[in-house]
Structures are given as structure tokens and as C-alpha cells.
């Protein structure tokens, strides 16, 4: 616990020794996990990280004090002395493996097909050759009734991984144990053949199975272009270690080897995609080919009758309010790109396109082979199983700590002044944590114990209000949360939920406090930012409390600083306003004479400030966000993928085309003219005295107004009416 107790309610630590090493872990940690996080692997057959431990195979036994304990399920205790590798432990483990092997149809189906039967591998490692125990006499039989999955009860070791996969993970509840003692086995429903049971062939049991008891029967699906890689070859790669070979065999179409020559473009920013790339060999450049600038509307300078002119302006030339002064641009890879020179290099062992693959977001950057490269391109199911694989996770984790933590921390402006020493300190202490779509990362009202940086995916920050939840922000990579509770020693002020496949960097409360103590400047900045966030939230809350008219709220009118309204009693629907808008904006209208109505007015504001700003979900480079006024701002590094425009239900975001020069795909190195688009929203013709639409209206139906003032009388009338 931090000295001032501001780190919320930390979980007490327990100290124990494992193989002579003194370790400290949070209370409730199992011996298995305590050993794992301290680099001491304990073998197991029945335990998987994504399933609840049940402690049945007993292969993970260790000496815990005077007695043996199954480390996967036994919690670490204060002062416990654990030995994982004594002669006695190793002997027991070997006997257990030998017992299982004496009934195992070696080589089982999994071993034959993909060479990755966990039991057979363990037997080989333990030196169990010919089991000395009597062989099994009564056969248990096979079940080939399912078209997708082959069941060999002979190879079943009753580890219950399939049962937990079916029941706990998939909630299908088809699989359970049957019978008792040596006759026990697994059964589908009422001990039916798998093919006649209520099994939906989701395959979870099969990929959970460590042996050949559940393997695939058929290969289904379409193929990626590229060279299919045999499961044995994949299993030879460190990152595929411990992935189910049967799974790889079944999904042989879903991971392919791709070779690129130096200069080849591997993917382009803004493209749709569904795959991730893992670099086996060679180097690539990741860069943005879009100009790093935003759309600026300017008077053409021809007097009263002039048109507005849209052009591109980088932040150095056109500083906007509340623009993020970020030195890095977040992309869908382990590194961020520098704002000034948006290019980075990735090498062997690195992965890119995770968000495109998992959540189908457009590609965030262009990737070009720098040298000749070999890549594995994979579909979502493969990446998903890899993300659950310990070895792969460890490698990603290592790479992240080594390569990306630095730039990731520095890309957050308030943290930019961290010293390399402290970043090195954090390298050892941060934790990458994944969340599935819909999972709550932290909940409003709970004590805060960590600070989080978003690495991957989108986090929804919402505040519970009596009238319903209000979305405060969507945070993408580079966003951070959790500081308010830690700074103030108060409960979480908002709920943060994973919107899609999210990965966050967790900085424990103690380290966060340490950072504040060491870097007063960061504390100041964070406190200022937090104060701003709190104040903005407070004001919104007050407005909600003061304005009783739900409809008004729903339309998001209350917070706008400036609204464009059309008096429908005067409007003849002549569409002059729309034409004027188009004229003013290089032929692209940003005004649609449709929209929500309040009283006799049609409201056509620049942004609806929706309770749930859908536009902000899915920007692959995190270039759209809310200002404190809740309007959106589009940052300079917009890649023009149209995700936000497609998401906005009110059509308030437009894609504005611009001619640019870019790399010639046919002749690398040459530049050609091409058209790029940038997102932009209505700017109320800020450079004009009046918005073009207002000016153009022949019936005096269009007005630019300040909503609280304009609607004050109307609101009062309404609310008293409602009270009456």
C-alpha cells in the first residue's frame, strides 16, 4: 500500500519462497501462477490459463511445506516454502505420466496429425518410454458420429479441459463427466454419440483437448492466398509452442506464409482487412502516406461574394483549440509513429494489424517491405488462439516492454518528461492485460488501484447518471484512464468498458504514486488534466440536473456553443442552404436539411454531441476525439478511411477530397498525383461572419444561435408545463 493510502484498496501481498527464491504475490494467487510470473514453469496437463483450475491431473504437484499440493489450485500462503523440482516431486510427476501413458493409444490422433499431444510430449521429456504398468484390457471406444470432431475415448485423460471449454467458456453445456472411478469418461448430453447430441460443433472442446481424444475430422473454410504451412512447421516456431496442433491443422487455411520482396507494399492505410501479419524474417517500414494535416476552411479573399476555400493545414500553421500536442501517432502495431516523420521500422518477431484482424478496423498505416521478408498472415481465429497462448503472450509482452513501452509512454503528452531510468523501472512493473468486448475494466464507485494506458482497441468511458449512462469518451491507443481515483484517493469516477478486443498497459497504483513523487511536473500536468476532466463532468452533470426536458437532452442541444437552426414555419424547403454550403466547401455539402426537431425548429448543428459518440469508435489511428465542449476534432493524422463518417448517424462528418502526391505502387520510389480524403465536420463557416447557409436563406428561416439563451423561454415553459 502506498504510504498515503491513495492507491485505493490494494490486495495484500504474501511472501513465500519457490525453489529458494523469495517471491511476493498478491493474496489469492495460486502457487502455479506465483511460480509462473517468477519464471519458474510447472508442468501441467489439466490446467489452462483461460479455464478455472480443478486440480485433477496432479502433474503440477509441488512440495508446499511438509505436504504435496496441486499448485494450479492451491493458493500461495505467507511463509510457504515451495519446492517444484525435488527428486520426490519429479518422481511423482513421472509416475503420473507413466500411469496415463499406460492407457494411452500412442501415438494418438493428435500426435499423428500434428505431433503435439501434450501427454506424449511430457512422457518424452520425463523419459517415460515403455510404460511398466499393465496395459489396459477393456477398450473404451471411439465416436466418429460428428462430422467435425473425432472422439477417441481411449486417449481421454479426463483433464476436463473440454468440459470447461464447453460449459464455462462457450456455455454450451453439452459435455460432462460420466460414470465413476476407472470407468469414468466424458459424455455428450445423456451419453449420446457426439453427432446426435446437442453439440453445435463449435470446436472449443477440440482445441482445449491436450491429447488425441478430440481432434478434427474435416477441414472446412476458404483459403488465404499464400503458402499453407503444415502444423508441424508452425509448431516448430516458438510463438506457436503449446498451441493445439489439431487446431492448426483444422485452420491450416487460416494462417499462411507470405513472402515479399524489398519495396513490396504489404498493406495500405484505410484498406479493409481481416488479417494480422507476423514477421518471421526481414524488416518492414510502417508509415502514413496521407499528408499530416487537417482541413482548414478559408475565405478566398474576394470580398463579400467570396467562396470559402478548403485546404490542408498542419498544426504548425493552423493551431486549433484543444488540439492534442502529441508527438506520436498511434497505429495498429507495437510502435507509434513520430508526428514529424511518420515512419517506423518493424522486424522479426513483431506483429501488426491486430485491430484490423480482431475487430475489422481499416488498416491504420501502409506497410512496405524494407528487405525481403517472410510473414505469417493469419485470420482472426488463429490470432485469437495465439492471444490465449502463454508463449506468444510472453513474447508479445517482452517485445512490447523492450520496443514500445518507451514510445508509448512518451506519446502521452503528460508523461513525456519521464526519464529513461524511470521507464526502465516501469518496464519491470507494467502488465499487459487483455479484455474481451463488453468486459468492464474498472467500475465507477470502486476503489482505484491502477493506472491504465490503452494499447489496443477502444475503451468506453461512461458515467452513470440517474437518466442513463453518458459516454464521456472513447479512448484509443494513447488514451489513459484511472488517474483521477489515484490522484485524489477517491473512488473511480467513471466506468471503463472494453468496446472491442482491448489491451491495456496496467501501471500498479504504487508505481503510479512513485512516478508522481519523482516527477512533480507530471503530477501537476495530470492534476490539471484531471481537474479539467472533473470540471467538465461536473458541468455536464449540472446541466443535466438543471434541464429537465429529456428530449432536449437526447438531442444533445444543451452543450453546444453554437447551433444552426431552421425555423420550419418559415422554411419552404428550397434547399438554398444546402447549395450554399456545398458552394462554400469546394462542392461538398456539410449540411443536410434533415435532422432532429425541437419545437418548431430543425436543428442542424455541427455536431450532435451525442451521448454515445459513435463516430469515435474504430478510428484506426485515433485521430478523432471529443473536445471538452463535446464537439469532435479531427487530428492531423487522419488517414481518410471514412470509418467515422460511416459511423455518424447524423451525417455530420464529411470526407473531403484533396489532390496529393503519393508513392507510385507500380514503380516504387516514384511519386504520382492522387486523391486523398480527410474527414471533417461542419465548422459553422467560422471564417465567415455568418455561415453560408444562413446567409443564403431567402426566407430568413436559418439562424445561428446560442442554445441555452435561445431556448430558455421555451424550456421554462416546457418544464413548468411538465410539472403541472
Amino acid at each position, binding site marked *: 500500500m502506498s504510504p498515503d493510502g491513495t492507491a485505493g484498496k490494494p490486495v495484500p501481498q504474501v511472501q513465500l519462497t519457490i525453489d529458494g527464491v523469495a517471491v511476493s504475490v498478491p493474496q489469492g494467487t495460486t502457487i502455479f501462477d506465483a511460480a509462473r510470473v517468477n519464471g519458474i514453469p510447472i508442468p501441467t496437463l489439466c490446467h489452462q490459463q483461460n479455464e478455472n483450475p480443478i486440480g485433477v491431473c496432479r502433474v503440477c504437484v509441488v512440495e508446499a511445506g511438509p505436504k504435496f499440493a496441486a499448485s494450479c489450485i492451491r493458493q500461495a500462503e505467507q511463509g510457504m516454502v515451495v519446492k517444484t523440482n525435488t527428486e520426490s516431486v519429479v518422481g511423482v510427476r513421472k509416475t503420473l505420466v507413466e*500411469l496415463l501413458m499406460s*492407457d494411452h493409444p500412442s501415438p494418438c490422433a493428435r500426435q499423428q496429425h500434428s505431433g503435439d499431444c501434450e501427454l506424449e510430449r511430457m512422457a518424452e521429456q520425463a523419459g517415460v518410454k515403455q510404460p511398466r504398468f499393465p496395459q489396459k484390457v477393456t477398450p473404451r471406444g471411439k465416436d466418429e458420429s460428428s462430422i467435425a470432431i473425432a472422439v477417441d475415448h481411449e486417449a481421454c485423460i479426463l483433464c476436463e479441459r473440454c468440459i470447461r471449454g464447453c460449459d464455462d467458456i462457450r456455455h454450451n*453445456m453439452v459435455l460432462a463427466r460420466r460414470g*465413476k472411478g476407472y470407468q469414468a469418461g466424458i459424455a*455428450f448430453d445423456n*451419453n449420446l454419440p457426439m453427432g446426435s447430441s446437442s453439440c453445435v460443433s463449435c470446436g472449443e472442446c477440440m482445441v482445449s483437448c491436450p491429447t488425441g481424444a478430440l481432434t478434427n475430422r474435416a477441414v472446412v473454410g476458404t483459403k488465404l492466398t499464400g503458402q499453407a504451412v503444415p502444423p508441424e512447421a508452425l509448431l516448430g516456431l516458438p510463438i506457436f509452442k503449446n498451441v493445439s496442433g489439431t487446431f492448426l491443422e483444422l485452420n491450416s487455411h487460416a494462417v499462411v506464409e507470405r513472402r515479399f520482396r524489398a519495396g513490396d507494399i504489404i498493406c495500405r492505410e484505410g484498406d479493409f482487412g481481416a488479417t494480422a501479419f507476423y514477421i518471421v524474417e526481414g524488416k518492414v517500414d510502417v508509415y502514413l502516406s496521407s499528408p499530416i494535416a487537417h482541413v482548414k476552411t478559408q475565405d478566398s479573399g474576394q470580398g463579400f461574394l467570396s467562396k470559402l476555400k478548403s485546404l490542408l493545414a498542419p498544426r504548425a500553421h493552423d493551431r486549433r483549440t484543444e488540439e492534442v500536442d502529441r508527438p506520436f501517432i498511434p497505429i495498429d502495431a507495437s510502435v507509434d509513429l513520430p508526428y514529424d516523420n511518420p515512419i517506423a521500422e518493424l522486424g522479426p518477431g513483431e506483429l501488426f494489424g491486430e485491430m484490423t484482424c480482431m475487430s475489422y478496423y481499416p488498416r491504420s498505416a501502409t506497410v512496405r517491405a524494407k528487405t525481403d521478408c517472410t510473414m505469417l498472415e493469419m485470420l482472426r481465429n488463429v490470432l485469437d488462439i495465439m492471444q490465449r497462448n502463454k508463449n506468444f503472450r510472453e513474447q508479445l509482452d517482452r517485445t512490447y516492454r523492450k520496443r514500445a513501452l518507451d514510445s508509448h509512454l512518451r506519446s502521452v503528452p503528460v508523461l513525456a518528461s519521464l526519464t529513461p531510468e524511470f521507464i526502465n523501472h516501469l518496464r519491470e512493473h507494467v502488465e499487459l492485460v487483455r479484455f474481451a468486448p463488453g468486459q468492464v475494466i474498472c467500475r465507477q464507485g470502486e476503489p482505484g488501484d491502477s493506472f491504465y494506458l490503452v494499447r489496443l482497441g477502444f475503451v468506453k468511458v461512461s458515467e452513470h447518471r440517474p437518466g442513463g449512462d453518458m459516454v464521456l469518451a472513447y479512448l484509443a491507443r494513447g488514451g489513459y484512464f484511472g488517474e483521477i481515483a489515484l490522484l485524489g484517493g477517491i473512488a473511480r469516477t467513471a466506468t471503463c468498458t472494453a468496446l472491442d478486443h482491448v489491451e491495456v498497459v496496467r501501471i500498479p497504483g504504487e508505481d503510479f504514486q512513485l512516478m508522481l513523487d519523482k516527477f512533480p511536473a507530471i503530477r501537476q500536468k495530470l492534476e490539471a488534466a484531471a481537474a479539467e476532466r472533473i470540471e467538465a463532468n461536473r458541468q455536464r452533470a449540472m446541466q443535466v440536473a438543471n434541464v429537465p426536458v429529456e428530449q432536449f437532452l437526447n438531442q444533445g442541444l444543451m452543450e453546444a456553443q453554437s447551433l444552426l437552426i431552421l425555423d420550419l414555419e418559415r422554411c419552404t424547403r428550397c434547399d438554398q442552404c444546402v447549395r450554399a454550403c456545398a458552394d462554400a466547401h469546394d462542392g461538398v455539402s456539410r449540411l443536410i436539411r434533415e435532422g432532429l426537431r425541437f419545437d418548431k425548429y430543425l436543428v442542424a448543428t455541427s455536431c450532435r454531441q451525442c451521448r454515445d459518440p459513435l463516430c469515435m469508435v474504430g478510428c484506426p489511428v485515433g485521430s478523432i476525439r471529443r473536445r471538452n465542449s463535446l464537439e469532435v476534432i479531427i487530428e492531423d493524422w487522419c488517414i481518410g478511411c471514412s470509418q467515422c463518417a460511416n459511423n455518424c448517424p447524423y451525417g455530420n462528418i464529411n470526407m473531403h477530397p484533396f489532390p496529393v502526391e503519393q508513392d507510385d505502387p507500380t514503380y516504387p520510389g516514384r511519386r504520382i498525383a492522387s486523391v486523398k480524403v480527410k474527414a471533417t465536420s461542419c465548422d459553422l463557416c467560422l471564417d465567415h461572419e455568418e455561415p453560408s447557409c444562413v446567409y443564403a436563406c431567402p426566407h430568413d428561416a436559418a439562424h445561428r444561435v446560442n442554445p441555452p439563451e435561445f431556448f430558455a423561454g421555451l424550456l421554462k415553459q416546457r418544464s413548468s408545463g411538465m410539472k403541472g
Partner: protein
Amino acid sequence: MFDELRAIQREFGYLPADQLQALSGKINVPLSQIHAVASFYPHFHLTPPPKVDCRVCADMTCHLRGGDQLKSGLEAAFRGDQQSLSIRDVSCLGRCDEAPAVMINDVIYSHVSGPQAVSMVQDALAGKPLPEALHHKPRVPVAMDPYNGTGEYAVVRRFLETQNWQDIIAALKASGLRGMGGAGFKTGLKWEIVRNAPGTAKYIVCNADESEPGTIKDRFIMENVPHLVIEGMIMAGLVTGAKEGILYIRHEYEYPKEVLQEELDRCYQHCLLGKNILGSGVAFDLKIFVSPGGYICGEESALLEAIEGKRAEPRNKPPFPGTNGLWNQPTVINNVETFCLATVILARGVDWYKAQGKGGSLGSKFVGISGDVNRPGIFEVPMGISYQELIFQHAGGIIDGKKLLGFAPSGPSSGYLPASMTNLPLDWDAVAKVGSMVGSGAIVVCAEGRCMLDMALNSVRFFRNESCGKCVPCRMGSQKMVEMLKGWTEGRAGEHDLQLLKELSDAMRLSSICGLGQVVPVPIVSVLTHFREVVDDHVLRRRCPAGVCFSESARRA
């Protein structure tokens, strides 16, 4: 769920698939889970049973008293009648004092001779009514009963005046009372743990699932002094703050169940149980839960799983039931005899109880003596009495004037001790010192002429049959051990079998989840320790000095 399953089985004779499917919808439990539970318990049939289901006890005492011959006699008499008759083994039925025992269509007959068994099966096949099983016996006076059989519940009455629970725990601690189910945990400490454990509800559970071969004392206690057991449970409830008690009884104990139910009804009539015990405002309810069967249910955490309607698979411990028991709440779970003795101690005083022991041992105890003795039965004896005295005086010595070969102090779990050790006193520490245990006091006696390797095989086979199958060492190890020992008795011992057996025993002892798996090797390890010559004869010289093994009849099962 068990009530639903029993109702279906009563109606159809077994559990038809469509009925289970319908049940799944009715109680909103996945079919796979219902099947998992139904297929676990021997009490439930998933296929239509034969017209006559004849099951012969094959364990330890019945094995000694002719159960095998009885079964082979039946098989010979009804050869070829596969359709309407099944003749199978059954695990110990708890009639060791009247061995051998046979169960025909779920009715238990004890002291059955070969011809009697054959004629009963013939009658059953012919549809004739079978004789009523005679279990209703006059009550036997129990010397330690402070109430002479009347059930005055003076301890409860006295407690309610002061409600001073510290005194009760202090008395139990001072008495040195231990759990009589076998493990011997200190009772006072257990009650104190539950008293002090936080929980929304607490439970008192009586383990009356007496199923270990040779163990018959709980049946005797329940039949003769049910009031002492119930009073012990009420006291545990009052002391710990539990409001609900469950007496978990094996389904074969129908008569003891009737006796207990009568006593429970009487308690409710006299306000000794219920929402307001004797007007004190304190509540304690007690009900009987009939086990769906299986020795493993006697393992305390498996028993709790069974009450919760699941497969009786032992839990990983810690946590222990004292803090995380039934429905994950603090639970006192004690054996029948423990509750009985607690009442006696609280009624007669600690000093009286301690003084019952002999030679420095404290208290008295019930033991069951069975096997090759003249007067098998249940005896109430002082702790510290020698096994010599127990076997030769209480149980009337060895049958047919034979010599004693060896004995098990507590059924298969204690392993076998040689005749030379009968001087040992019935004392926890003394018996533990020689690597065995007083356990539940299930003394099984083997006369000269028995093959101790055969007895070890019989014991290990019992454990194999009763393993729940949850963890690898027990599920696989018990099966492989049976196969190995069978090999030894059939002249198929492998060269490295002794070494392998040692490795297997270590693995099972050290890594099994529960006591069952841990004690599977005990019988053979004890025979290797005390009767090594017998094993060497079999393994090295391929002969059985007793003439039991290497024969056709030994090759069965």
C-alpha cells in the same frame, strides 16, 4: 435433484432417457449435468434392471466368510440365465457382523448360506415374495448412555439455561475427543473453528455414510442410542450457531434410518428441534439425507458435494469444511460416534469420560470386530484395551480353534498387522506408531490359512471399485495396482514390480486429492512390511503357501 431422480426410478425402475430430458427442462439443469450425476451413483440405473438383481458382497469380511463361494455357487446354479438375472459384486453392505451379505432387488439379507441364496434367487425369478429381511432387533443397552435409553436431552436443557458455548468447547477439548470416522481430528477444535468462522449460514452434518469394510459401529449406535447422536448434533448447532443439521445416511441403512426418524419426530414433538427449542428462541432443524450411494460419499467434502446434488467428488483442500463447507458455508461435519461421545462427555463430565480408558488412554469407544472370530459384533470398550483382549475375549477368539494370522485395526485403510502385534493397546498414538491406525475401530481378523496377499488384493480392489475417478493417481493408480497384484496372485509378477509398486504407492500417497487415493496402497504396503515372506513366495517362487492363489476360483473378478 436426487428426489426427482428417485421418483423417476420408482416409477420406471430405472432412469429412461426421455424422462431425464424432461427433467432437464423441468429443473433447468443441462442434461449433461443430470447424466453426470445419475451415472456417478450406484443407486441409479440408466438401463432397465433385470428381473432379479442379485448382488453379493465381496469385501474383506464377506470375502473371509465365504462371499466368493456363495457367488460362484449362484453363478453355477443359474448359468445361462442372463436375461432376467444378474449376479454381481457389491461393495460392503455394512453387515460384517453377519457375513456374508447378499442384496436381492435392493433388499439386504445377511448370514446367508449358499443353498439359502440359491433358493431365494429361484423364488425371486419365479415371482414369489422373498422373506422379509430381519433387521428389527430389540435395542441393546449401551453402558455409556447417561439416560439408559430414554433420551432425556439433559445436555441440551442444561445448555439452554446458560448458553455458555465456551464451556462446551473447553470440555470437548479437555476430553481429548477426536473424530471417530477415521481421521481423528480434535472435535473441540473443529467446533470452535466453525463457531468463529464468518458465514451467512452454518451447518451441522453427521456423517452416517459408514461404508468401509468392517465398519459397523455407527449402525449399532444409530439403532441403539439414536438420541445421543441427535443430541450431539443439536449441541453442535447450539454451540456454533448453525440453524440446520443434516444427517447423511447410506441408503442401505434403512432400519437405522427408521429408528432415527422416529427419534427426530419425537424431538420435534417435544420442541427439542425446530424454530424455538424448548422456548429458548433458538432454532435448529435436523433432517435425514439418504445417500445415493458410494464409499466415496464418506469422504467429508465429497459428502457435501452429494448433499449439494453434485457428483460426490472430493474437493481440493484447503479450504476445509470448517470454513468452506456445505454451500461454501462453515460446517461441522462429524461421524455418528463423535456426536454420540460428545453427548456422553457433556452429560457425564470430562473426568468420567477420561477415567473410562485403560493404561493411560482416555475414554471409551465402539469397535466392530468381524472376520474369522467366533463372536463377531459391536463392542463398547475402554480405550487402551489390547487387541488381544478384543479379539480373544470380546469376540470369542478365532474360529475353529485356529491361530491368529493377522488383523486390520480399521478395515482396509489401516492395512494389516501381524498376530505378534495383538499386544498393542487400542490407542491412537500407539497404533499410529506402528504405521497403522485406530481409525473407525473396524477390526477385521484373519485366521491362519488365509493368504495375506489375497487379502491385500481384496482391499485394494475395494478402493479401486470405490474411487470416484476425479484425480489421476487414484483413478489410474488403483486400477493398475489391482492389475499388478492380480498378476502376483496368478504368477505374472514382473521383474521390477516391487520397485514399481513402491513408486506407485508414493505417487498415490503424495498426490491424490483425498484420503481414499492416499490409502489405496496401505493394504499391500502393510503386507509387504509384515508378511513379506508371503509376497516373496508369490512373486519369486510362484506359489501361495495358503493355497488360495494360483487357483481357478482366485482368477475370477
